[in-house]
């Protein structure tokens, strides 16, 4: 269960699959970090950030969460390799991100869009969504 980058004419389309909602959210963060391609020199100093959010539904919650992570990445020039959820429900979350200061960032994602995003709990119990990143 993971993320996979697919074809899109101008931007980046990614499918994310996981066996729990928490993993879907964290895999989406790791997939986004993969697109950003940060370079890290110092892994000794661990950075922590907290994000609390509410949204109209689970899909919007994921997109808003990823946009918050994106904002923190670019404002603080940081990369996150661990996401821990204190709580995660259909319409709200409290998360702790851990990571490092980035020496450089390789890709400028303008935003995570709502286009094609649809968080689904499939019949086999797994979770899936498509994501389009505006590059």
């Amino acid at each position, binding site marked *: 269960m993971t993320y996979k980058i697919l074809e899109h004419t101008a931007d980046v389309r990614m499918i994310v699959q996981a066996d729990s909602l928490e993993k879907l959210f964290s895999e989406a963060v790791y997939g986004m970090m993969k697109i*950003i391609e940060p370079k890290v020199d110092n892994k000794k100093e661990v950075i922590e950030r907290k994000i609390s959010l509410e949204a109209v539904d689970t899909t919007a919650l994921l997109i808003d969460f990823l946009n918050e992570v994106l904002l923190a990445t670019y404002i603080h020039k940081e990369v996150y390799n661990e996401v821990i959820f204190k709580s995660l429900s259909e319409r709200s979350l409290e998360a702790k991100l851990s990571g490092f200061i980035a020496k450089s960032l*390789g890709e400028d994602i303008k*935003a995570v869009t709502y*286009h094609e995003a649809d968080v689904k709990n499939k019949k086999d119990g797994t979770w899936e969504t498509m994501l389009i990143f505006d590059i």
Partner: protein
Amino acid sequence: MFNKSNLIKIEDFLWEIPKNFRNDMRVPARIYTHDEMLDSIAVDKSLEQLVNVATLPGIKGYALAMPDIHEGYGFPVGGVAAFDSEEGIISPGGIGYDINCGVRLLRSEKTFSEVKPHLHNLGRTIYHEVPSGVGVGGRLDLKGREFDMVLEKGAERMLELGYGEVQDLEHIESGGVLHTAAPELVSVHAKSRGRDQLGTMGAGNHFVEVDIVEVIFDNGEAEKLNIFKDQVTVLIHTGSRGLGHQIATDYIRIMMKVMPNYGIVLPDRELACAPFKSREGQEYFKAMSAGANFAWANRQLITWEVRKAWKDVLGKEGGKLSMVYDVAHNIAKIEEYTLDGKKYNLVIHRKGATRSFPGQPVLIPGSMGTNSYILVGQEKAMISSFGSSCHGAGRRMSRTRARKEVSVEELRQRLESMGIVVNAGSSKGLTEESPEAYKDVNEVVGVIHEAGIAKKVARLKPIAVIKG
């Protein structure tokens, strides 16, 4: 998936998807293109996205696509949509995340032969003067009221700080400032994301390019713009950077929450919108205006940086770099149009489309290594295309595929064999923007010219490319 049978040719270079194609359409959708290009347009989701735009409340006339249309998210890129300012909506997705991404052209007094011996040095010096790449800050780090003044006054504020000449403002769309801007409606997050990015190019398809005037199509119009054959020019393509991206993100989120209050139901959430007259609609419009002003200030500071590089390399003998024009291609503007004999104030959304008012220079950048164009807007644009034209070549290939098609060494060699000096920070970025990833700009501009919405004045050929 669309095919030609869904479209009706209503005049040369203009096709229509009728209103009855889908029962949620409020107006038809129209596409400027020619027969062969239509096949390639129908490949991705761009026409489906255009039909979705035609369903939005208060849309007038038709949802319009330019020949450089390609799949976006929500709205297609290369689209124009006009909404009634009384009864219609405003949608951040119809402008895009890069608010007032646009193009500025500077003209020198020099010919190619005079600049050629200095070309490598010029490319290198511009690369050093104009910060580029992801997360790379600029020479100004304005805070508080100082930053808000940029959001309020746009390019004019840069002149007050000493980065430009009074004549520059006369050659910018809207004079380089939207007076509807309200910096207090731009979030702290957006300001933090853009704070140190003034005067920076960014990454992706943004660039600074040194060109020569290869062909003059219309001597009279070229003379009016002080454009002559073999003249060296500089093209700047960038926008509002992280500030604009965050303004769009913030307001799409707000609109997503309030849409049910206004009874708006959408076929795609990325079309999130609010009535233009609503509090949320007005607040977005004022924040977007601030973002647009930041972009004009950004291109103004980059102009100063390019002028500095030019002077450092060519000295006093290099003469001046003067403005030809500066156009926005991701923006919303209030403009008056007559429809069925009645005048309307319309909220014109241009997402990957350039204003093309009669007599106004229209600048169309090509892809890296290919031609760019100077056109002049025509009267027909006011009747047929809501005063709009195309904005570039338009992508036809994904970034991943582009990277597989050509290696960075191959691409560098090819560009160099064409006499183009390349200064790029990222090899990956270079191959993603390779010419084969884009449609043929000559064909795209040909459609615009033949359709009569803008007229070709001159064609430019790149001699130095500077990228992040």
